[in-house]
């Protein structure tokens, strides 16, 4: 227990409190700007079991704030990359990585395995899903969200306190609120706010009285101003969710991007007309794809280069393993480009195919 000696000498923690931390199970949804610092402190603090769910991969533009990653983990899944880094920080705890998207299908079973849920997501679809599944499974949610220089933190669904829907009953109109990739965010702000989430988790586990339940803490990193707003519980928001207990999907029209993204096998590309391969790997990635009808737009620059893509072609996005290419399809589709596919299995499939066929 020498690892936790600075905790143990605190009279408010002690051996007993540390034992509680070691017994606790915390699920972190999203290993991004908020998830990374939260995970770092939870791991160091000796939370016994930590789950990390994230389907996304590490991109260079993440490194400005997502402190668990580095150049060696570019292109890797965030849940898996965090687990590797965190196991080095503390190998005595259990870390479960779920390299997938949180959906109305997997959320119930996953939440049941943990005591506290951290919301570190970057979109409203998942935030409302977390809220609703937490109500159904009766788990507290340590929530945070950020915008440029500002952050919000609260604890929802804790000891009969309010939920996220008591604050914002319904998701805002699609596209009306920008996220970090569109408007930017101060890197250190995510560190401050994500660390506050870890702090709230620890307060809950140790049974401290003044948890941020029923309160929304707002912080502005530019002005150093803080404001705490009181939120009241609205029982009808809970009833609305509980009524849909057996029909979670209806409440969350699972417009899961995954289902809208068409994958194609290397073999099947031969059947398509006017095929154009778009390699979305970064320029330093090997091997080079040297085939006809192929060009390169790194995923990090895709949004600025969408004019190079022609919907009249059958556009097949390619990356190392077939994960980033799905993301590329999603981005292209969001910008109105049709006729897009993600190459299943990534570049190696294509190289094999062309060796055989050419």
């Amino acid at each position, binding site marked *: 227990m020498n690892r936790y000696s600075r905790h143990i000498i605190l009279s408010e923690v002690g051996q007993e409190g540390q034992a509680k931390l070691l017994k606790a199970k915390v699920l972190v949804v999203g290993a991004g700007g908020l998830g990374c610092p939260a995970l770092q402190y939870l791991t160091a603090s000796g939370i016994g079991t930590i789950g990390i769910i994230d389907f996304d991969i590490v991109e260079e533009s993440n490194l400005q704030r997502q402190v668990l990653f580095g150049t060696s983990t570019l292109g890797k899944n965030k849940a898996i990359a965090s687990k590797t880094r965190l196991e080095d920080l503390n190998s005595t705890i259990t870390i479960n990585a779920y390299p997938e998207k949180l959906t109305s299908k997997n959320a119930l079973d996953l939440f049941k395995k943990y005591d506290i849920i951290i919301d570190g997501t970057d979109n409203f679809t998942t935030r409302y899903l977390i809220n609703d599944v937490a109500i159904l499974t009766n788990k507290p949610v340590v929530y945070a*969200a950020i915008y440029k220089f500002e952050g919000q933190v609260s604890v929802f669904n804790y000891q009969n306190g309010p939920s996220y829907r008591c604050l914002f009953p319904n998701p805002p109109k699609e596209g009306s609120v920008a996220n970090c990739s569109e408007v930017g965010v101060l890197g250190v702000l995510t560190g401050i706010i994500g660390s506050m989430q870890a702090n709230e988790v620890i307060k809950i586990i140790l049974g401290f009285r003044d948890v941020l339940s029923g309160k929304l803490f707002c912080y502005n990193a530019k002005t150093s101003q803080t404001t705490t707003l009181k939120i009241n519980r609205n029982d009808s928001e809970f009833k609305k969710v509980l009524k849909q207990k057996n029909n979670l999907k209806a409440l969350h029209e699972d417009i899961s991007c995954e289902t809208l993204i068409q994958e194609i096998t290397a073999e099947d590309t031969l059947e398509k007309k006017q095929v154009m391969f778009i390699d979305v790997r970064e320029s330093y990635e090997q091997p080079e794809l040297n085939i006809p009808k192929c060009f390169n737009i790194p995923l990090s620059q895709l949004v600025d280069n969408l004019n190079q893509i022609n919907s009249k072609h059958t556009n097949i996005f390619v990356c190392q393993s077939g994960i980033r290419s799905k993301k590329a399809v999603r981005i292209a589709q969001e910008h109105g480009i049709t006729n897009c596919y993600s190459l299943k299995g990534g570049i190696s499939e294509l190289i094999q195919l062309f060796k055989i066929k050419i």
Partner: protein
Amino acid sequence: MILNIKYFGLLAEITKCNEENVEFSNSSVSELLSLLFNKYPDLRDKDFQVAQNNEIVSKGTIVSETEIALLPPFSGG
């Protein structure tokens, strides 16, 4: 009375200030919002909640305190 109104996130970009004093003589939060919508038409189609004296209140609430805040949802993480 003179209200002190705080704007958060995107709303502060529309109003071009983090807070301001506004003279208000009507009664409800929704009347206050009409006044602000006239001043800042771009606020009209934004989603946000209103707090009075640091407590989130409904649009029908009577404005009885001078501290008001307009809080939009944030999505970033």
